[in-house]
């Protein structure tokens, strides 16, 4: 959202007033700066629809000769948002580009920018762009983090295919998921939300760690993951992607952009996937992965004038997943164990940015989004049907009083209508939270930034609650900079909706009444350093430490009784502490290596004892190697991971059916891409070492017995897989 508003501000383009200069020539002169007012050398300035253009000099200045009757110029710079503005001859313009994605590695068009660590943003943010997303099979959002050291994606259980994302060692419900900076996939949609965004639709993903800006709400305890879909103004006219894997998963994606006129454009997206072949490599009689069919449709509109940017989008998802015993077993028994989950989901959003002063220093952003999620599920004999409606609105006013002082303020509303029925027992839980917020940003000489924010929200049971947050950034010199953040976050848990996969077990689900809203303090520090190793190359090193301290938490106690899961309020301490170091280096032209290591320490008080959180890996080591040939026609990617061991929930002491701990396990994947002018082909393999968790489903032979449990998953459930795909695109005409 922050970027949306900022973008809005800069879309207004004209920052300095148009000054009339002595009318000697009809040249357009101007200066291009970043958000912090620093000049941007090397930015492109050219006539829209014309042939000529120029580049800004060392001080960010340009002098553009007139061309015909053209009156609109485009200002662009790699890693920044493009800007288009109307100009009158003989004027001086000041253009401020949105610098959210400033590349700290090396701003150079020679290099395809894959991962950008924003140097300007006060919140630690890493942007993965299309190039990065294409380094792996990347069929959907959940599969996009193979090369990312910070984000872990694992299966929640061995039957439903539900996935959870982990950031700072904590589960996905503490990470705020956003699409186009709008909170999405909350509650009921969270177990499968990662499957609801097809890879080829994404333009970029931003992962930010630690507490977020108060403008985005009170959630986001450990960080944010934002997905930007492709935009009609910057996308190819038509793109097609086809994918197939050795597990006979087939996917087709198509998107098309239409420019209706100068101000209006639209884009259509369609996705179909079919993964309906049965696999049982483990031989336990259960499908290794569910059979899935998904239809996903999205249409977005983009409207823009000098004073207004308006976006509207509508999305529909249908998904059917079936799992449980294989056909062979289903035929043998009268009473087969089957899992079926059918989902319909609709989303609508509109984002509007209004600039109502000529200088573009003030803007108003209005976001309204709604979604409806309907899920019908059966796990053996247990039925869980639920639906959730959501309405979200956020109004943000932003103004820059002075280059050193900026203020943001606004009001938000979040409403959830939640209805669930478990074996015909109906329950409703509606929640409406209105809130207000204010945020102040102070900048000192481009070296120091402080952003302090506070919000107040009203909740039915908690009444008025306050969320304070503080971010600091210190940028003393070119080769190093530091960040620090501290703040509070809170959220309401939808126990069954978010943990519905636990129904794929015979564990009794016990939920205490009067569960409190969860809340935590998050604290983080990080340092980014660049060590020169010669004339051009630098080793980039990022080190960080994040600590999350829960004041209220809903604990899933899987330990006290191996035949039950008990959701209860935290009584005692609960924390997560993670330390991560990441090193990036281009050894020689085209050959880049990233190595990262993370130590995770997550403990919570379970039944009176402070214990390691079960099914959470103690460490993760990641090594990715990429090589591109000089003309970038060939690309080779290899990624290896070692995920550290961890604790299992306590097994039955009299009849232990699983170990007390699991050992570290490796994952290796690779891909080869061959690019042609308008298309590319890729082929690769996942889990090359073919390492899988043995017996991921406990007592699979007796799904109706008391020991059956598909949720004791810590490692890969599927073995080695090969895949291949094709991408074709028709570029936009100039």
């Amino acid at each position, binding site marked *: 959202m922050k970027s949306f508003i900022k973008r809005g501000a800069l879309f207004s383009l004209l920052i300095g007033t148009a000054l009339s200069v002595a009318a000697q020539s009809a040249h357009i002169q101007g200066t291009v700066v970043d958000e912090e007012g620093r000049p941007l050398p090397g930015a492109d300035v*050219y006539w829209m629809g014309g042939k000529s253009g120029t580049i800004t000099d060392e001080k960010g200045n340009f002098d553009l000769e007139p061309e015909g009757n053209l009156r609109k110029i485009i200002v662009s710079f790699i890693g920044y948002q493009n800007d288009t503005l109307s100009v009158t001859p003989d004027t001086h313009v000041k253009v401020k580009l949105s610098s959210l994605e400033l590349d700290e590695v090396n701003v150079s068009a020679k290099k395809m920018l894959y991962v950008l660590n924003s140097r300007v943003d006060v919140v630690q943010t890493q942007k993965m762009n299309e190039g990065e997303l294409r380094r792996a099979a990347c069929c959907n959002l959940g599969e996009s983090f193979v090369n990312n050291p910070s984000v872990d994606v694992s299966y929640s259980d061995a039957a439903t295919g539900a996935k959870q994302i982990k950031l700072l060692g904590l589960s996905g419900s503490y990470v705020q998921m956003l699409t186009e900076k709008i909170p999405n996939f909350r509650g009921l949609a969270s177990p499968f939300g990662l499957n609801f965004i097809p890879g080829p639709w994404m333009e970029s993903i931003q992962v930010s760690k630690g507490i977020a800006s108060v403008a985005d709400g009170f959630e986001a305890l450990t960080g944010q993951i934002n997905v930007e879909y492709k935009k009609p103004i910057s996308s190819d006219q038509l793109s097609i992607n086809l994918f197939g894997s050795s597990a006979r998963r087939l996917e087709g994606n198509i998107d098309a952009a239409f420019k209706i006129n100068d101000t209006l454009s639209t884009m259509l997206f369609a996705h179909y996937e079919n993964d309906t072949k049965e696999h049982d490599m483990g031989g336990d009689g259960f499908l290794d992965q569910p059979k899935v069919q998904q239809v996903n449709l999205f249409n977005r509109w983009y409207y823009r004038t000098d004073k207004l940017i308006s976006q509207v989008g509508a999305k529909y998802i249908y998904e059917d997943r079936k799992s449980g015993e294989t056909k062979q077993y289903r035929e043998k028994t009268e009473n087969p164990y089957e899992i079926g989950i059918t989902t319909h989901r609709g989303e609508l959003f509109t984002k509007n940015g209004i600039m109502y002063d000529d200088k573009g220093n003030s803007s108003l952003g209005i976001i309204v989004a709604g979604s409806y999620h309907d899920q019908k599920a059966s796990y053996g004999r247990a039925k869980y049907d639920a639906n959730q409606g959501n309405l979200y609105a956020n109004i943000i006013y932003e103004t820059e009083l002075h280059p050193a002082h900026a203020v943001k303020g606004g009001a938000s509303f979040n409403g959830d209508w939640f209805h669930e029925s478990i074996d015909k027992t109906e329950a409703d839980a509606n929640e409406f939270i209105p809130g207000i917020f204010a945020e102040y940003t102070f900048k000192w000489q481009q070296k120091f930034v402080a952003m302090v924010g506070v919000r107040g929200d009203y909740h039915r049971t908690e009444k008025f609650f306050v969320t304070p947050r503080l971010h600091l950034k210190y940028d003393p010199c070119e080769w190093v900079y530091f960040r620090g953040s501290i703040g509070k976050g809170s959220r309401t848990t939808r126990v069954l909706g978010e943990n519905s996969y636990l129904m794929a077990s015979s564990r009794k689900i016990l939920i205490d009444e009067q569960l409190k809203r969860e809340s935590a303090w998050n604290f983080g520090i990080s340092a980014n350093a660049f060590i020169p190793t010669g004339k051009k190359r630098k080793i980039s090193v990022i080190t960080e430490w994040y600590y999350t301290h829960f004041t209220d938490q809903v604990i899933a106690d899987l330990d006290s009784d191996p035949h039950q899961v008990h959701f209860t309020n935290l009584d005692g301490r609960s924390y997560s502490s993670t330390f991560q170091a990441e090193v990036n280096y281009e050894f020689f032209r085209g050959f880049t290596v990233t190595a990262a290591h993370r130590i995770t320490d997550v403990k919570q008080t379970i039944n009176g004892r402070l214990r390691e959180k079960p099914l959470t890996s103690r460490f993760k080591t990641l090594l990715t190697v990429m090589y591109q040939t000089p003309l970038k026609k060939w690309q080779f990617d290899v990624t290896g991971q070692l995920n550290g061991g961890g604790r299992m929930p306590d097994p039955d002491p009299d009849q232990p059916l699983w170990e007390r701990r699991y050992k570290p396990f490796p994952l290796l994947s690779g891909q080869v891409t061959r690019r042609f002018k308008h298309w590319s082909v890729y082929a690769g393999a996942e889990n090359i070492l073919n390492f899988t968790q043995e017996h991921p489903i406990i007592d699979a032979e007796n799904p109706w017995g008391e020991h059956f449990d598909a949720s004791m998953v810590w490692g890969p459930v599927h073995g080695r897989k090969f895949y291949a795909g094709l991408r074709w695109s028709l570029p936009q005409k100039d």
Partner: protein
Amino acid sequence: MKAIFRTIAISALLLSAVNVFAGKNDKESVTFNVAMKCHKCQAKIENNIAYEKGVTDLSVNLEEKKVTVTYKKKSTDVEKLKEAFKKLGYEVTVVEEEKKE
């Protein structure tokens, strides 16, 4: 696992070495003055000239408005490359080499 990474790294290294040294004699480089204005133009040139027959390497210098193309003498020549630039909408001239050093 280390062994695997090492193998991959070494093969990638070899591969690039092969690219550099194979048939060095029948390759030639030429630098053109190209009136390109922006990074978008640069991307357009990179995405198209790279796929011209015979082209083995490409380096674009936007600030100096120069493009250096390395090509196989057997497969293409300066005139053909000029033609390729023309198709993209750029009239180019060859930068005369300064043989001082």
